[in-house]
């Protein structure tokens, strides 16, 4: 069993809008998959379906050999799925350390001392150590994004879902973030990463999938996908045939 995630024919409709339209995805253990697509294409909804914060209308999600389609988000977290939110949702009345401790305590359900050690370790990895005792409401946007990553990591995931974690970062910050995510990968965590900052993606992922209007329209080796007519059409509004013709 080398697959960590197999999502089959996932569909989700909000009112008249088909936000996710029969999307299938697979991810190998230790693999990193990038997802790109225009705003409103349904990328975050796809994450919601995988993480369990929204229910799929149809389709099936198998994680680590277990059918998790009917499980609530917290159970999926216990099994090893963690996600960061595109718009950070920090626990504003808690310190950075306490935020991360929540992930370490409830995600893995470890002993108190183990959770504390895990939390500090993650603060170190994500460069938040200096802010450990700062209330989350006093963090900058960038620090909040790091906190999203830190909290998710603290829960001890085997699959990490990152939602536009590099958006708004300066170049040096982006380099730091890529290094941190690279380290997470080396620790054996599988990653799916939604990102508009394409060069950040290309530095990390093995594969890229393109989502548009809720459908997966392309998938494959990153450079090949980025050069494909479908991507040109989605991003540049250029007719694929014409661009290559």
């Amino acid at each position, binding site marked *: 069993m080398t697959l960590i995630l197999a999502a089959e024919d996932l569909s989700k409709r909000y009112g008249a809008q088909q936000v996710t339209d029969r999307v299938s995805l697979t991810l190998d253990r230790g693999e990193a998959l990038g997802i790109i697509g225009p705003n409103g294409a349904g990328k975050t909804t796809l994450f919601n379906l995988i993480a369990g*914060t929204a229910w799929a209308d149809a389709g099936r999600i198998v994680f680590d050999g277990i059918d998790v389609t009917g499980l609530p988000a*917290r159970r999926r977290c216990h099994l090893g799925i963690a996600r960061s939110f595109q718009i950070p949702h920090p626990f504003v009345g808690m*310190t950075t350390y306490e935020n991360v401790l929540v992930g370490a305590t409830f995600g893995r359900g470890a002993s108190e001392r183990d959770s504390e050690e895990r939390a500090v370790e993650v603060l170190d990895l994500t460069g938040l150590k200096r802010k450990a005792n700062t209330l989350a409401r006093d963090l900058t946007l960038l620090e909040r994004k790091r906190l999203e990553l830190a909290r998710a990591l603290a*829960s001890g995931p085997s699959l990490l879902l990152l939602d536009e974690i590099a958006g708004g970062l300066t170049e040096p910050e982006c380099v730091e973030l890529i290094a941190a995510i690279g380290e997470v990968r080396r620790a054996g965590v599988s990653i799916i990463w939604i990102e508009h900052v394409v060069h950040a993606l290309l530095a990390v992922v093995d594969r890229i999938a393109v989502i548009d209007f809720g459908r997966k329209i392309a998938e494959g080796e990153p450079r090949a996908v980025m050069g494909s007519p479908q991507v040109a059409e989605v991003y540049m509004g250029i007719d694929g045939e014409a661009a290559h013709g």
Partner: protein
Amino acid sequence: MGTAFTIQRSTRTSRVTAIVALLLVAVLFAAPWWAGRANVRLLGEILSFVALASLWNLLAGYAGLASVGQQAYVGFGGYALFALAMFLGVHPLVAIAAAGLVGALVAIPIAPLLFRLQGAYFAIGTWVLAEVFRLSFAQVAALGGGSGTSLPVGIVAGIAADRALREMLLYWSALAIAVAAVAFVVLLLRSRAGLALTAIRDSEIASESLGIDIWRTKLLVYVSVAGLTSMTGAFIFLQKLRISPDAAFSVNDWTAYVIFIAVIGGIGTIEGPVVGTILFFLLRETLADLGTTYLILLGAVAIFVMLRAPKGLWGLVVQHTGITLVPVRRRVVFPKNS
């Protein structure tokens, strides 16, 4: 692994607070020897409101369960005490604790019903529940039906032989309940469940995604608060020696005043309800002779505080001084050289 660190859970302020709190409890314990009869009785009432407000604050300020129906449990506790003492011959002081247990048990099947309701609907649901309780107890003829009943003299005399000792025992039970309620809130918030609760208060969706069982955490809070509120209610009506459905399930006495206290003191802080209770009784004792005007003034104070200090008076203190007397925080301390 790598980094050395320690977790600090108390500060110098909090250690001083702990000592002051212990001294205060000792002074309060000795009240029957330094305060007059009427004042001891008043202190007992104040202590019962410290308990009610701290518990409501835990429910609404931390668990986000904004109940306007906690009178359901105050009244239920009172009636449970009367029933246990009158029909089963339980000693009234023992019945206080037993009423708490029964109140908690009753809350277990009620919680899943109420939790189906969100926000304002939840609030209305709790009020409806309290009305159902009031109407139900009004049907119980053995407890005096709609007009209520008094605790038989024999039972009252059974608490203790002479009146002075009886009043002391009653007062000490109020002190015990208030200390238990506040201690419960502090210990809960410092525990693993408290970490979950604070996280839920700040973001439900992030909590759920990080593996917290929101439903169970809220159930734990609702049921334990119901139990302790029932105990407080049992004490209140044991002190009054008389109970009726209208008094027992009064939304004014047991919820409106309690919310007033928590709001002016500071919702979502441990100190707030205590500060609020003191202020409430200061207002009441100085202004109560004014009749209706007193209630208007109370309303005006509430509106003023909500507009000028939405986090309550204690919130204002925290904002300006950064002081927290009760340590629920966890501070990471790294050695100087790391």
